[in-house]
C-alpha cells in the first residue's frame, strides 16, 4: 500500500490511502466527522492539502477510491473517460491544475472542451485546494447551455425553478403559488412540484394542471413533478403530459440502490420521456437532485468524504444529458453540514464541481430549522452563486416551503439577484414576461401591477 506523507513544522504527517488524503484535505464539516474521516487537527488538514497538491492528476485514473469491480458509478466514470479531452492537463499535479484553472489560459471554450476528460475525483481534489473566491472565479468561466421549451445557461442570464409545493397537493393552492411566482418573473428553468406523497394519480393530476396552466398562458417553460423515476415511467405509460423525468441520485451504486435507482432504469426513463417529444427548443429531458451526505445517510460511503462522493453523483447526472441538476445543499441537516459557514462552502463546491464536469448546475440555497443557519446565510450564498453564474436557483413563496418544512429562497430573492447583478431570465421566457407586462425591456419588474392583474384575470 503506498504511503502519502509530508513534513510540516518539523512534524511528520502520514496518510495511508488516497481516500484518507482526500478526506483530510477537505474543509471541515460535520458529516465527515460523523463518518470518522475528518482531519483531527487544522495542521493535519493543511498537511493533507499539501500532499494532495503534489499528486499527479492522472493518479485518479488508476487508483479508484470506490472499487471498480463492485461499483457501477466507478465503472461509469472510468469507462467513459475521454483521454483526448484530458490531454491538455494530463501532465499536471493537482496543485498545478488549480493554478492553471485560475489562469487566463483556462478560457470558457477550453474548459468546455476539457469537461469529458475530467473525473469527479479530479475536480473534487482541486476544489479542496481552493478558497471560496477561487471556486467562484473558475465556475463563472464555464458555460453550459441546455434547453427544452426555454434555453438556459446563456451569458447574462440566470434561471429559476418555481417550487409551489402544498402539504396536501391541493391543485388550487399550488396554482396560487405558481401565479405568485410568475408575477415575480420566476419559473423559466422549471415549475417543479414536490408532491406530498408518492401517489401516481396525484402526480398525474398535478401534471395535467401544470400542463393546462402552461398552455393557457403559453409560457415557454417546462413542468416537473418530483416523484420517483419508476413512477414517471408508469405515468408516461398512462399518458399524462410529462415534460421532465426527475430523480435524486448519489455517488455510489449502493447509495443509488438506497434510492431505488439503477443506471439502466435512468436510461429507460430518459428514453420514455424523449419518445414524448414535448420540447420545442431542445431535448434535455432529465432533472436530477443531489446533496452532500446522501451516501453516508444510506450507509454507502465506503470511507470516502462526502464532498468527493457528491462530485461522483455528477458523473451519474452527466451520463443522461440533463436539463437541470441541483444540489439541495442545506436540506439534509446539521449532521452533515452544521451551520451557515459549512452550507455556504458546500454550495460553492457543489456548483463548481458540477459546472466543471459540464453539468447545468443549479443550487437549492436552503437550510432546515435544526441547522445553525438563517436567511442571512442564504443571502450570502445566493449572491455568491449568482456571481459564479449558477444555471438556476430555486425559489418558493416567502422562502418558506410549507410541504417540505425548510427554507429556500423567496421569489423576491430572484428579483433582487437579477436587479443587483443585471441578470435576465431565459430569452424565450423573458420575451413572454415582457409581452405579459410583468417586466420591462431591461428585465426589471414593472411597478404598476398591471401584468400581475392580467395573470389573475385568467386564473383557474
Amino acid at each position, binding site marked *: 500500500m503506498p504511503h502519502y506523507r509530508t513534513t510540516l513544522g518539523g512534524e511528520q504527517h502520514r496518510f495511508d490511502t488516497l481516500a484518507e488524503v482526500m478526506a483530510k484535505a477537505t474543509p471541515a464539516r460535520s458529516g465527515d466527522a460523523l463518518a470518522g474521516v475528518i482531519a483531527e487537527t487544522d495542521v493535519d488538514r493543511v498537511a493533507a492539502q499539501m500532499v494532495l497538491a503534489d499528486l499527479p492528476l492522472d493518479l485518479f485514473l488508476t487508483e479508484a477510491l470506490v472499487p471498480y469491480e463492485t461499483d457501477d458509478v466507478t465503472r461509469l466514470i472510468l469507462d467513459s473517460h475521454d483521454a483526448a479531452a484530458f490531454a491538455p492537463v494530463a501532465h499536471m499535479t493537482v496543485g498545478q491544475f488549480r493554478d492553471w484553472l485560475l489562469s487566463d489560459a483556462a478560457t470558457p471554450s477550453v474548459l468546455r472542451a476539457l469537461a469529458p476528460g475530467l473525473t469527479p475525483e479530479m475536480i473534487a481534489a482541486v476544489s479542496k485546494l481552493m478558497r471560496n473566491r477561487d471556486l467562484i472565479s473558475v465556475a463563472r468561466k464555464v458555460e453550459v447551455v441546455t434547453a427544452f421549451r426555454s434555453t438556459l445557461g446563456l451569458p447574462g442570464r440566470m434561471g429559476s425553478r418555481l417550487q409551489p409545493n402544498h402539504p396536501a397537493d391541493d391543485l388550487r393552492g399550488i396554482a396560487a403559488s405558481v401565479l405568485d411566482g410568475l408575477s415575480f418573473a420566476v419559473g423559466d428553468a422549471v415549475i417543479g412540484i414536490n408532491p406530498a*406523497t408518492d401517489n401516481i394519480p396525484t402526480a398525474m393530476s398535478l401534471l395535467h394542471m401544470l400542463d393546462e396552466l402552461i398552455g393557457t398562458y403559453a409560457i415557454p417553460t417546462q413542468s416537473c413533478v418530483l416523484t420517483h423515476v419508476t413512477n414517471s415511467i408508469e405515468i408516461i405509460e398512462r399518458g399524462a403530459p410529462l415534460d421532465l423525468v426527475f430523480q435524486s441520485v448519489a455517488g455510489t451504486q449502493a447509495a443509488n440502490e*438506497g434510492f431505488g435507482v439503477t443506471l439502466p432504469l435512468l436510461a429507460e426513463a430518459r428514453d420514455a420521456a424523449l419518445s414524448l417529444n414535448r420540447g420545442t427548443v431542445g431535448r434535455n429531458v432529465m432533472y436530477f437532485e443531489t446533496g452532500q451526505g446522501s451516501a453516508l445517510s444510506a450507509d454507502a460511503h465506503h470511507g470516502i468524504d462526502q464532498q468527493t462522493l457528491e462530485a461522483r453523483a455528477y458523473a451519474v447526472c452527466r451520463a443522461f444529458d440533463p436539463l437541470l441538476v441541483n444540489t439541495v445543499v442545506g436540506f439534509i441537516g*446539521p*449532521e452533515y453540514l452544521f451551520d451557515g459557514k459549512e452550507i455556504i462552502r458546500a454550495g460553492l463546491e457543489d456548483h463548481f464541481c458540477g459546472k466543471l464536469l459540464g453539468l447545468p448546475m443549479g443550487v437549492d440555497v436552503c437550510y432546515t430549522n435544526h441547522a445553525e443557519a438563517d436567511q442571512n446565510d442564504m443571502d450570502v450564498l445566493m449572491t455568491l452563486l449568482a456571481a459564479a453564474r449558477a444555471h438556476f436557483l430555486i425559489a418558493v413563496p416567502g*422562502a418558506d416551503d*410549507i410541504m417540505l*418544512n425548510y427554507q429556500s429562497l423567496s421569489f423576491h430573492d430572484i*428579483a433582487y439577484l437579477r436587479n443587483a447583478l443585471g441578470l435576465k431570465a431565459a430569452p424565450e421566457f423573458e420575451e413572454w414576461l415582457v409581452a405579459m407586462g410583468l417586466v420591462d425591456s431591461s428585465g426589471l419588474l414593472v411597478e404598476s401591477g398591471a401584468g400581475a392583474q392580467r395573470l389573475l384575470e385568467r386564473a383557474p
Partner: protein
Amino acid sequence: MSDIAKDPWARLRAATPARIALGRSGAGLPTQANLAFQFAHARARDAVHSALDVDRLVADLGDLPVIRTRSAVPDRASYLRRPDLGRTLAEGEAAHLPCSPCDVLFVIADGLSAAAVQAHAAPVIHATLLRLKGLTCGPIVIAEQARVAIGDQIGTAIGARLTVLLVGERPGLTVADSLGAYLTFGPKPGTRDSARNCLSNIHGQGGMSHDRAADKIAWLARAALKLGLTGTGLKEDADVSPLLPD
C-alpha cells in the same frame, strides 16, 4: 364590497397557507412580512428543542398496551449531530422488549417535533386501528430521542410482520407539528429507505387529516401484508382504489 373584490389576490391567498402575495419593497420583502418570517423562524427553532410529554401521550392512548423505550442518544444536542445513535436502541433496551409476534406494530418516535407526536400520534393510531379489523396488532411502543430506523430494531425484537412508525417531522415555519408515518414490511436492522412507504404532512393546518391518514395507512398495511413488501414496489394507489384490498 368583499375582500376578494377589493383585492384580487385574496382568493388565491385563501387557497394556500403558503406566503404568497406579500407585496414588495423594491425587490425586497416589506417590513411586516419580514418580521413575520423572523417570528416564525424563531418559533420553529424553539420547537426543535422541546421535549415529549410521554405520560400525557400514554394517557391519550387510553386502554392500549404501551411499552416505553429510548434510543442511544444522551441529549438533544447529540440527537442533532449523531443520527446513528438515534436509529439505535440504548444499551439493554432491546432485551426489555417482549417477543409478541403480530401483523402490525405501531412505534411512536419523537423525531424532530415532540409537538407533532403529542397532537397527532394517538388520534391517528385510534383511527387506524378501527380500519385494521381482522389483523393482530402488538403493543404501542414509544421511543424517545428516536429516528425512523429505530423501528427496524424494535420490529425485529417484537416479531412484527409490519411496522407503522409515526414520527415528528422537522418543524417548518408555517407548521411546527407535522407528523410522518413510515411503513416497513419485514423490519430488520439495515432496511433501506427505498423499502419503506412514507406518508407525510399529517397535521391540522391544511395537511392530511387523521381519518385520511388512517385510510391510507390501513390501505398500505393490508396491501403490504398481502404482497409481502413495502417501498418502491408498492405504489400508494388509494385514490384510484378506495376499496381496501382483501
